């Protein structure tokens, strides 16, 4: 099980080379470029601030504490846990949709769509959890969603939330992809993100046909979809997570 992960990891590290594991690449690049002294001092300030944030995040780790956060961790496993958190959220959302009033009276086509998407997200969730564990990482705990802002009896509420989750998922994978060091993990993320994009386009077409690509998600100058950084994704995802289950991404690679 998971042989592909394991066999490839050594080669992956070698292939990633100097750009992969080195998190402060830009810092070094700028020192190499002969940046002025003030620049170096200011860069140092950023690192101190980061360390302070990290220690604060680590200190709030007691159970039954609403201020407690679930830190997804660092490195590639951190990225995979970040993805696992999002897939947990999506899978829980679609499971709830299938039990709700909207789904019960939805058109045959929409029932088929939501049934498929629920299965896909459940598979993504279970696969990521198993994959993280099988490769020596520790999957984060089961997150407790808070969908109180969604009316599962309302078609527009459900479709609007589905659009938000799918667009967020695509932007999150796109933004996190370059932070991954191991090309095998990057390839797996790529296999998932295009399925999320297919979901996003269809959900949007269900809301209004022809809105599969709009300027809020795809630049009209470059044709590139807009990424979100993990910190931006976390703050959006946390709106749908209960206190105590909110995720923290402060230890993830930044570049």
């Amino acid at each position, binding site marked *: *099980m*998971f042989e*592909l*992960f394991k066999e490839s990891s050594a080669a992956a590290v070698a292939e*990633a080379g100097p*750009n*992969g594991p080195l998190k402060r690449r*830009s810092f070094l690049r*700028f020192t190499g470029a002969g*940046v002025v002294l*003030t*620049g170096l001092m*200011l*860069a140092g300030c950023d690192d101190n601030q980061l360390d302070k944030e990290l220690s604060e995040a680590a200190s709030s780790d007691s159970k039954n504490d609403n201020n407690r956060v679930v830190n997804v961790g660092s490195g590639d496993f951190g990225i995979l846990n970040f993805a696992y958190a999002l897939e947990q959220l999506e899978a829980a959302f679609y499971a709830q949709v299938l039990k709700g009033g909207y789904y019960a009276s939805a*058109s*045959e*086509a929409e029932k*088929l*769509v939501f049934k*498929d998407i629920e*299965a*896909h997200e*459940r*598979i*993504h969730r279970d*696969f990521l959890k198993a*994959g993280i564990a099988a490769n020596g990482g520790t999957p984060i705990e089961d997150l407790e969603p808070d969908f109180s802002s969604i009316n599962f009896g309302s078609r527009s509420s459900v479709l609007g939330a589905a659009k938000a989750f799918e667009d967020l998922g*695509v932007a999150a*994978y*796109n*933004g996190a*992809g*370059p932070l991954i060091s191991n*090309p*095998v993990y*990057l390839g797996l993320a*790529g*296999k998932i*993100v*295009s*399925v*999320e*994009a*297919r*979901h*996003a*386009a*269809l959900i949007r*077409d*269900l809301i209004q*046909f022809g809105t*599969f*690509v709009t300027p809020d998600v*795809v630049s009209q*100058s*470059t*044709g*590139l*979809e807009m*990424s979100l950084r993990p910190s931006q994704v976390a703050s959006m995802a946390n709106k749908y997570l209960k206190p105590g289950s909110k995720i923290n991404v402060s230890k993830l690679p930044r570049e």
Partner: protein
Amino acid sequence: MNILNLISEIERVDPEVYERLDQRRQMFRHFAGFGKKLAVAAVPLALGGVLQKAYGQSSGLSEQIKFVLNFALKLEYLEYYFYQMGLDAPGLLSGQLRDSVTIIRNDERNHVNFLRSVLGSAAIPDPGAGAFDFTGAKGGARAPLFPDVFTNAGTFFAVAQALEDTGVRAYKGGAPLLISNNTVLEAALNIHSVEARHASHIRTVRRGGPQGIPGPLTSKPKSWISGDDNGGPAPMYTAPVYGPGMPAEAYPSEANVTQAGVNLVSVFGVSTAEASEAFDEPLDPNTVLAIAGNFIK
């Protein structure tokens, strides 16, 4: 093209574009507001040079990255000219379908321009519309595969689906080769997901719109690839779009249900269709070129 608008658009995608444009980012970061103005004031007139510098990170792009980006550019030209010819074909597209194809054509044109900007002088020349024959007859060298591609909307969307699904697989195959340059990698991912959105929409059109019920996977597909879609819109010609690449171990067919050594069906108890749909598969450059070659004279 307005350079300030373009930079501003890129900023939406890549918040650090100003930092890439000027290596003194650590200083700029602490002088909020000044950085952008200074960086824009410093932008040379040649847009291509600016983007090449920003995305090439001053040291130039590696040969591997140039290869992958030029390969992508070739596919984007193929797609762009396909949609442009469709829009130019009298009576082929009207109403909502015309609007959708226009959106997709614009995205492909933007992808062409973006990739050209990143590659700068290393970009392949524009092949021009005349390089392509979307009937698949290779300019008359063989019998056409899709003789009515620009007179029958059904055929047009069938070919469009094959091209978009190929594009998604091609970018997916190329992404890990870009891992040494995070900026270029992210841009490629940002194109990859747009191609997937296009593919989804075209598939939705082919089954009669979002309220259409999926039927035979070849003619009324889901918005995602299910199994190998029984070979796609025209199995005799499009099966390679959904089949395995070379080597098949690294580039399995879209029907694949084993990810990272885990058989999703047996381990998670899901159906074969669900397991295959949940993951798209990459394709290698040679297989992609063989597919694209059907439309190149």
